[in-house]
């Protein structure tokens, strides 16, 4: 595993990998690797939460293990499942032997019949720690949260038939949440917390220049101005950085060099996703374009 010595090295590493981090995100990331506490990243959609974990793994040169959360996650899909097919084959192999049912049972509920799911994999990983990304944890059930809490307190997993497995190299854990519901305080208290806000205009231009290098300085400025004013409106789903990038790429693909009403109408689908939001855009069209044009 690679290490970084200080915040500057961390910042430089992230930039090199194409992530322009706000200064305030760097210290929590640094502490994540030094204090061994998980980091909970909350923020609106598309502000770079998932990307943070990916880039961190890349920078450290370690494997990224990702658990995408959704309703109904359970032990079998997140921790382990028994390899039933293999167990049955083993039973058949033992048919001819005179092994007692008890000893067969002991055998087939052993580690080699275990299918490891992401959480168990993150704990049993042999050579060095991994980055464990538990993405969109707010989509999982309360029950699963209680479960995570146990894992995150001491990086142990108990499997009734096998016993307790303790991580040899505790993983670096990043949790993300869009805050569609509140997580329990107990879980949050285990974690370092950081709210990722939308980037400043300056930072967003920097991201844009980096990810879409063909864009002219002038168009980048107009694009960022407009996106940032959109975020100030009461939208159902305000555009994130992902939308800014999509939009800029679309504009370039269409060979456009400036914004006007027609352009915005033709490409608004890159920025907004609902008819209600289109309506808001329509009502504010004039002032938005005026602000972006200045």
């Amino acid at each position, binding site marked *: 595993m690679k290490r970084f010595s200080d*915040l500057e090295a961390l910042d430089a590493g992230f930039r090199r990998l194409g992530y322009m981090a706000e200064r305030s995100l760097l210290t929590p990331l640094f502490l994540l690797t030094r204090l061994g506490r998980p980091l909970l990243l*909350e923020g609106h959609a598309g502000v770079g939460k998932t990307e943070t974990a990916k880039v961190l793994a890349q920078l450290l040169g370690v494997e990224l293990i990702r658990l995408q959360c959704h309703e109904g996650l359970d032990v079998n899909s997140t921790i382990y499942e028994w390899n039933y097919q293999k167990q049955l084959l083993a039973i058949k192999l033992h048919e001819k032997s005179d092994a007692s049912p008890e000893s067969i049972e002991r055998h087939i509920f052993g580690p080699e019949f275990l299918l490891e799911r992401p959480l168990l994999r993150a704990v049993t990983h042999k050579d060095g720690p991994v980055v464990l990304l538990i993405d969109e944890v707010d989509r999982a059930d309360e029950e699963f949260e209680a479960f995570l809490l146990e894992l995150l307190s001491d990086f142990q997993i108990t499997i009734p038939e096998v016993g307790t497995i303790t991580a040899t190299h505790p993983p670096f854990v990043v949790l993300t949440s869009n805050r569609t519901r509140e997580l329990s305080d107990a879980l949050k208290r285990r974690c*370092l917390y950081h709210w990722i806000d939308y980037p400043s205009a300056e930072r967003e231009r920097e991201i844009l220049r980096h990810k879409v290098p063909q864009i002219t300085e002038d168009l980048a400025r107009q694009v960022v101005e407009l996106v940032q004013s959109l975020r100030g409106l009461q939208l159902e789903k305000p555009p994130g950085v992902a939308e800014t990038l999509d939009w800029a790429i679309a504009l370039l693909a269409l060979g456009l060099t400036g914004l006007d009403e027609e352009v915005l109408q033709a490409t608004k689908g890159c920025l907004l996703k609902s008819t209600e939001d289109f309506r808001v855009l329509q009502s504010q069209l004039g002032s938005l374009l005026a602000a972006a044009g200045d």
Partner: protein
Amino acid sequence: MSQFSRSQSASDFHEPLRAKVVGFSHVLRHHGFQVGLRETEDAVRVAAHFLCADFAAFRDGLRSLYCLSQEECGTFDPLFEGYWAPPDGASRITPPSTAPRKERREFPGGLDLTTGFGDAADVEQSTRTTSGASTLEVLRTMDFSQVTPVDQVRLERLAARLWRRMYVNLPRRLRGANWKNRLHFRRTMRRNLSQGGDPLYLVFAGRKPRRPRLVVMLDVSGSMELYSFTFLRLLYVLQRRFRRVHSFVFSTALEDVSGVLAARSLGGALAALSRKRIGWNGGTRIGDCLHALVREHGGRVFRQDSVFIILSDGLDTGEPERLADGLKAIGKLARKVIWLNPLLGIAGYEPIARGMSTALPLVDVFAPAHNLESLLDIERYLVK
């Protein structure tokens, strides 16, 4: 870098710095932050590493240690500044003069049920020190119509915690004794032994039971005045924490309030509710509203495992037949129909009000709902 090695105790660092950090923890706790020993210990490490070298990083680090939400981050910054670097002319924030409360111990393993370390936890703590009826007991059993605004806040925190406990317990209880989400070993083996070399059969012990969805309908008509506000706040807690809940309020008309109650703050939710101008406090047409629920929302909110809860005193101004029909229609959609009635807590109350006596044979559970204790019994009904 050695400051961050986990084996080294933070107490090796020099004491003045430590005392200063502990003081800051007290300030934050005083402002409602949940700060325990762990946070303070880690904060000492962060201070030793960053305080002199990089003040902004020191602030960012402490913020990530102490804060649990975006809102807390907003509160944190001025407190940090006021304590560590008050601007010229401003007086420095000092720790509250009262003796610092004892650091709370982390609960060993498992789920930390004291999700609020604020008033509710104090309430519980005081149960150990006061003799006789404890505050906690009083709050749990106090009739909602008697709750003062001060109690209201504490009650809410208590409610949030107890609901949470219920939701964590519930799946375990539902699972019962006979459910195992694993291969039924012996049966599988027997089945396959007789099959010779044929396809492999797996026999499972059972299917995983799922947590039921709740559809809650709250009466906000005049006769419920003393109760509906408290219930609304409880619904807010439920709705905000759990996605498998659909909330409706009704009096003469029905209104879906799930979205409104999911708002970030209770104040915001209540304000949005009052903007909706639901026919507050004028007549009660339970039957019509039940029909409206089935007709307009039935397909969307009900699944076959749904539990329907109506919170109402049953003082209906509509036709009893209409009410009965409505309940029957709901009964077809929901797995279980529960009627919670605050009046049932009143000694001597008999459900002979016109609506109520019609409804009784059509509901699976008829129970009181005049205090927290009685609401928490819902857990029992959900299990079966």
